[in-house]
């Protein structure tokens, strides 16, 4: 199965990554390719919209951890929005909700 990934560049140096599908061991490399380079551009605010994602497995979670570490060392910010309850639970159980910027509400874009 494939992931739908779409990137939108906003004026204020922020990039929104819209993701749809299931993030698992097979689709995780696609996400990494799209997400990691964004977190490496100094001063960028990266927002990942997970409204279209209904399932993330541990490999998928690993991609977000890699992105978090990369954004911490490259002076960028990373924010996750639009998590459904199953995905939210995963971030909460793993304690990642306390080290990551996670917003349940879908942001008012623009």
């Amino acid at each position, binding site marked *: 199965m494939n992931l739908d990934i779409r990137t939108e560049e906003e004026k204020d140096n922020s990039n929104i990554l819209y993701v749809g599908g299931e993030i698992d*061991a097979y689709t995780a490399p696609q996400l*990494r390719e799209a997400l990691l380079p964004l977190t490496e551009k100094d001063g960028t605010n990266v927002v990942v919209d997970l409204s279209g994602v209904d399932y993330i*497995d*541990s*490999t998928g*979670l*690993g*991609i977000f*951890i*890699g992105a*978090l*570490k*990369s954004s911490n060392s490259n002076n960028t910010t990373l924010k996750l929005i639009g998590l459904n309850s199953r995905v939210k639970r995963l971030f909460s*159980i*793993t*304690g*990642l909700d*306390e*080290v990551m910027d996670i917003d349940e509400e879908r942001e008012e874009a623009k």
Partner: protein
Amino acid sequence: MADSFSLMQEQYAKILQTYLQEKNEIGLYHAQQFSKKVLENQISPEEVVSLHLDAIEKFFPDLPQGARDSFEFLLEVMMGYGMAYREHQSLRDKQKELETEINVAANMQQTFLPKEIPSVDSLDVGVISVPASKMSGDYYHFVKDENNCIGVAIADIIGKGVPAALCMSMIKYAMDSLPEQRLQPGALLENLNRVVEQNVASNMFITMMYGSYDPRVHHFYYSGAGHEPGFYYNYKTDSFEELYAKGLVLGITRDTTFREYHKKVEPGDFIVLLSDGVTECRTDEGFIEREELTRFIHQYKHLPAQEIVNNVFYQLEKLQGFQLRDDFSLIILRRKV
């Protein structure tokens, strides 16, 4: 090889001749049998064509030159098949070799897991851990200290298969190198986290729950590093509650601290620890609910702990059509009545 080839040549001529004379089903059956033999003797497709040509030339000495040449042409065409066939053969050999290596590694990995569960009079312990493929990303560990306290660890390494298994060996060695005296669960996880943080790739992590059961006072002390919550069964009220210790997964930041929780364990109560392969059991109708899992455990609660975990595994394996998607580990510690 040359001998067996000339034998094949003779045999082919014989069955072809019989077929040309009688043209019946039996002849075709012989052809099928022969093709099995060809595979067994690793005779390539172009060699079969040349077998055919040799035989035809024998039967029809006046074969028109054009027909003969056409076989030379066919021979050339079959070369490519022959090459692909030989490549397939060598890949098969290589795969066998890899499989052997993985089997050795899988056996080695088994030695990482405790051979026997330490026993104390007041505790009934059951453990099952089954990998989805040959190598497992689940890890569990038991220790008994001089005060008869039982330490139990359950960990899940991201991913599965060989990479997870390699990472697991690190956890095993890190656990072994911890100081002899009993560590509080929180302190133990802090120690492990430092090892993991320094030694894993940026998108790797490990979740773990560590608990220590003190049989003198019947207290269970535990801390968690982002691990799938377990359950606590209360014998008096005959009900399950979630056993969860909030904490960040291992391998993210160096100075993570882990809160310690504790629980007074009454006779008949039991603690259920699990890996996410148990709760992420996926059936045709979707994921099983945690309530379904507790229903299974409840159904077998009158049995010894080992039989409970065996039965629950069997039920969940059946639900998934006997095809595990993730490594499966389930541990039960029950205070005897």
